[in-house]
């Protein structure tokens, strides 16, 4: 029963009774106490470890909305606009033009065996390029022998080369939704939604989702999360087929696995009558680093994908309203079924009509089956307004807001999808705080990179990629943002009694930082270095790039 006391430059505890400390004592993977060295001596014999004496320790970051695919995508080359870090800590430089993307793909193609196998790349984000869109000819420069597929950062659109288009016999005569055609009526090689999914399947031979969520992907995800100071992360929507579950169980049973993983069962993938017993069975496999307990439901699509369900007056540019993945009636029924059985439901809502429908589904479930402390959570809730936050508060709901969107798509929302007023109040952390709705902020990796300090920076500064401040009134303080990425997120996962703050009895899960996020200028918050993490008393140093 050894005890180690770690000394730090500063410890930010999230415990209001003692917000800051210089030492934390760890025993059996848990926090024995925090305070001064003097105040900890009474616990008996200990070893003093001073390796973090220049570091700043925070509770381990909790990512409440990410996907383990983040670990799988790194099997493939990244061709996005922004720099991004892979699980091994290597930084991929962002590609700033179409030519750079093609050149990077050509170089990568030369490293592949000449066997006609598929070249798949991901993260492509043409919205930041001026001029023309990518087309078949661009990717034919990469190869006319092997299929080449470039997935966009949203994972719903892709570009293909001639071999892919030819195999699927897509020509100017193919009249299918999602096939983009040029002014002359020729397919450009860009495909969306259903068509994209189909082509990816045919070209790669398997469903992408399976490819991205095996045991290796789970490890990759844990590592990329750990690099960002994350000690607990969700895989927030997975139908959890046997192979994926096995991968999770195997990976998480290793002491070297650096995070606590919470997969959320895709609640609409099978009828609730099958899902509930299945989820109960899965919960028997839970261990210290793996928790089955969450259910995820998806109402609408995405705002930038023009598939969000919006209330009046709808899209700023007049695009018709989006689509339901789960319609209002079915949502009512599913929420009630899971709610009645004691589960916590996380509901994806991007548009404000979707948020309204989800709030009402929870309201109806509460009338039918009153229940305390359910903490049903709206995920994204990007367009929720003050009235909706007041309803969430009254109903005991939580929100997990997509702060990273402000940076990555804020300019598009301002100019095209939402218009100035609604763009300035989107991902309304300030309103959540003012109305008292417990909230977290998230990245939705791999849609945007995992990095809670960056996410906190977004919520604090609300700067878009072009440098516009999007909604002064919704900014929150650094302290509030740090709470949202630790205890706040833990609360939305019902783990706040176990982790999320540095408090006696809680798990020794820490983010170990090079600098004090409360002392640096708030615009530098995203640049605070992550030395590594501690998970249950075990130290994980991040590899240096």
């Amino acid at each position, binding site marked *: 029963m050894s005890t180690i006391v770690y000394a730090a430059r500063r410890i930010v505890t999230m415990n209001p009774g003692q917000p800051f400390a210089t030492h934390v004592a760890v025993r059996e993977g848990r926090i024995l106490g925090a305070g001064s060295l003097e105040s900890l001596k009474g616990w008996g014999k200990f070893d003093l470890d001073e390796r973090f004496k220049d570091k700043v320790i925070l509770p381990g970051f909790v990512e409440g909305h990410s996907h383990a695919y983040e670990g799988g995508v790194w099997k493939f080359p990244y061709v996005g606009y922004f720099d991004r870090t892979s699980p091994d800590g290597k930084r991929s430089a962002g590609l700033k033009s179409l030519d750079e993307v093609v050149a990077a793909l050509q170089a990568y193609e030369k490293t592949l065996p000449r066997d006609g196998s598929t070249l798949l790349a991901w993260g492509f984000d043409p919205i930041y390029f001026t001029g023309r869109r990518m087309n078949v000819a661009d990717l034919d420069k990469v190869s006319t022998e092997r299929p080449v597929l470039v997935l966009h950062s949203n994972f719903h659109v892709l570009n293909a080369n001639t071999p892919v288009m030819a195999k*699927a*016999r*897509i020509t100017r005569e*193919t*009249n*299918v*939704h*999602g096939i983009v055609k040029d002014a002359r009526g020729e397919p450009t090689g860009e495909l969306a*939604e*259903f*068509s994209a*999914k*189909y*082509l990816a*399947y*045919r070209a790669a031979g398997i*469903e992408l*989702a399976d490819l991205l969520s095996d045991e290796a992907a789970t490890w990759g995800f844990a590592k990329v999360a750990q690099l960002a100071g994350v000690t607990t992360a969700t895989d927030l929507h997975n*139908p959890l087929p046997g192979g994926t579950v096995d991968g999770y169980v195997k990976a998480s049973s290793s002491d070297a696995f650096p995070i606590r993983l919470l997969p959320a069962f*895709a609640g609409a*993938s*099978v*009828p609730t*009558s099958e899902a509930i017993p299945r989820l109960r069975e899965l919960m028997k496999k839970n261990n210290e680093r793996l928790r089955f307990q969450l259910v995820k439901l998806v109402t609408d699509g995405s705002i930038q994908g023009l598939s969000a*369900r919006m209330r009046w007056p709808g899209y700023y540019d007049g695009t*018709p*309203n989006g*689509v*339901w*993945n*789960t*319609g*209002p*009636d*079915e949502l009512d029924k599913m929420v009630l079924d899971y709610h009645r059985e004691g589960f916590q439901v996380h509901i994806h809502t991007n548009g404000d*009509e979707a948020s309204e*429908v989800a709030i009402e589904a929870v309201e109806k479930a509460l009338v039918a089956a009153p229940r305390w402390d359910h903490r049903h959570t709206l995920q994204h809730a990007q367009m929720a307004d003050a009235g909706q936050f007041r309803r969430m508060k009254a109903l005991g709901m939580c929100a997990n807001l997509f702060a990273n969107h402000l940076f990555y798509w804020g300019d598009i929302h301002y100019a095209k999808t939402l218009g100035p007023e609604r763009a300035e109040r989107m991902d309304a952390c300030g309103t959540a705080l003012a109305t008292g709705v417990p909230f977290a902020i998230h990245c939705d990796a791999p849609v945007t990179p995992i990095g809670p300090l960056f996410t906190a920076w977004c919520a604090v500064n609300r700067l878009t990629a072009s440098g516009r401040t999007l909604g002064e009134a919704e900014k929150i303080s650094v302290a509030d943002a740090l709470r949202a990425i630790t205890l706040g997120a833990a609360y939305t996962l019902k783990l706040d009694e176990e982790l999320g703050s540095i408090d006696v009895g809680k798990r020794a899960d820490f983010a170990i930082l090079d600098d004090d996020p409360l002392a640096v200028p708030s615009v530098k918050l995203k640049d605070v270095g992550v030395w590594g993490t501690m998970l249950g008393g075990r130290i994980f140093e991040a590899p240096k790039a």
Partner: protein
Amino acid sequence: MSAQIPFTVIGGFLGAGKTTLLNRLLAGVEGRRFAVLVNDFGALDIDGKLIARHGGDTIALANGCVCCTIGDSLVETVLKLLERPETIDHIVVEASGVADPGRIADLGVLDERLSRDGVVVVADADQVRARAADKRVGDTVLRQLQAADLIVLNKVDLADDLAVMRCWLSTHSQAPVLEAQHCAVPLDLLFGLDRRGASGKPTPANSFRSWSYSWPEPVDRAALLEVLHDATVLRGKGIVRFRDSPDRRSIVHQVGKRIDITDGGPWSDTEESQLVLLGVRPVLGSL
């Protein structure tokens, strides 16, 4: 071309009667192996005695049909089905209550092993207008009706004013409408004749029939299309020699309002133009 598997999508809002229709299909089919893809087995009314094998997400029936649950990915479910060894004569997908069935039918266009057949939308005669006026789901319901090649207007016995209903429907969709109670409509109309051109069970309770035509001389395209667009023609299938392309076989495939004409290779002088129509009354004399 004949190796392609017809791909039908059944759409319609929650509660319209999609499952009732599928139950009728599974109970009434003869001589054809249907693969029916549904969201939930539980809703299907499958006689336990008819189940040959139950394997998790697939049920094999004694009559050769299979039912599969769609799970999380329709694309994956359909493509895995196509890789199965057993022969399938027809694939029917039950769209979710909020899906656009036209989008799902695109899969029948994209995959060379499939041929897009009809989009059949089931509408509840008593509820559909109220649903279409709903601020949250109205646009979804109207998109479904617009995507329909054929509409089954179900529960007509429950509708307050059928005449008004018919009129309303005609302003929201060009598709022919089959009125029904408990989805009792002839399966041939929805799923076509089998590959031998033979009809399934006769359905004496209704006035639908099939007619066969053949012409030794080339046919005028515009004249034929005009006839096919007649509201009483609900299905058509044939190989035609058009006057404007006398050297080619033109394959005509019609489901309700949708008429596809595709090229079927060079015309051989030993054959005649042939067309089989399903409909309410004979409309073709000579062309």
